[in-house]
């Protein structure tokens, strides 16, 4: 499976810093990727997506970068705020034409004031 148990990788940053969360995906045929934010006790919240024919996409304070050569995805959060503290998941759509997402293991982001 995709999980690694209770010990999620953790990224600790100071408020105002830029955060970079990384994700390695496994299927070179994956055509679509999504980043989700999950706060404790809540469902995943859609942040930003990117198609495989793009390298970069920007949203409000967030940027997703896709490197298909090394099958790597990253989420950059500018001017990180305490409200950004959560677990972040990347998800890949492995079957073109089907909406079947496979989730990564997740990264916990801790933002200190």
């Amino acid at each position, binding site marked *: *499976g995709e999980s690694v148990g209770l010990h999620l990788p953790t990224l600790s940053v100071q408020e105002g810093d830029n955060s970079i969360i990384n994700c390695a995906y496994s299927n070179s045929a994956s055509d679509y990727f999504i980043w989700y934010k999950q706060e404790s006790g809540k469902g995943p919240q859609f942040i930003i997506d990117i198609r495989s024919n793009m390298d970069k996409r920007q949203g409000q304070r967030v940027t997703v970068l896709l490197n298909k050569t090394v099958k790597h995805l990253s989420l950059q959060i500018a001017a990180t705020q305490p409200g950004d503290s959560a677990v972040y998941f990347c998800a890949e759509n492995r079957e073109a034409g089907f*909406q079947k997402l496979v989730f990564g293991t997740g990264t916990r982001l801790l933002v200190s004031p």
Partner: protein
Amino acid sequence: SAVISQKPSRDICQRGTSLTIQCQVDSQVTMMFWYRQQPGQSLTLIATANQGSEATYESGFVIDKFPISRPNLTFSTLTVSNMSPEDSSIYLCSAGQGEGYEQYFGPGTRLTVT
């Protein structure tokens, strides 16, 4: 984006019983999905709920254990049957709309089996 609600939000059930979880979307959506999330872990897709036809299950999940209904384009149910403590988990419903494959999630149902 779609707004998704789930009922119940949590439940404690006895071994051997069954629980049906409801998922309601505030707009018509093409596809609905059910996921399981063990505490502190990632999400695993259980099945795709198809309107008007049988659900499509992922490897490791079977209809007898997780029967799913999708009577219309805004509603689905997942039943966890003959529960054991290993079924204790968070069950999440999601809905896909638009050609961008976005999926939006409900708040989840936290199930504890004793």
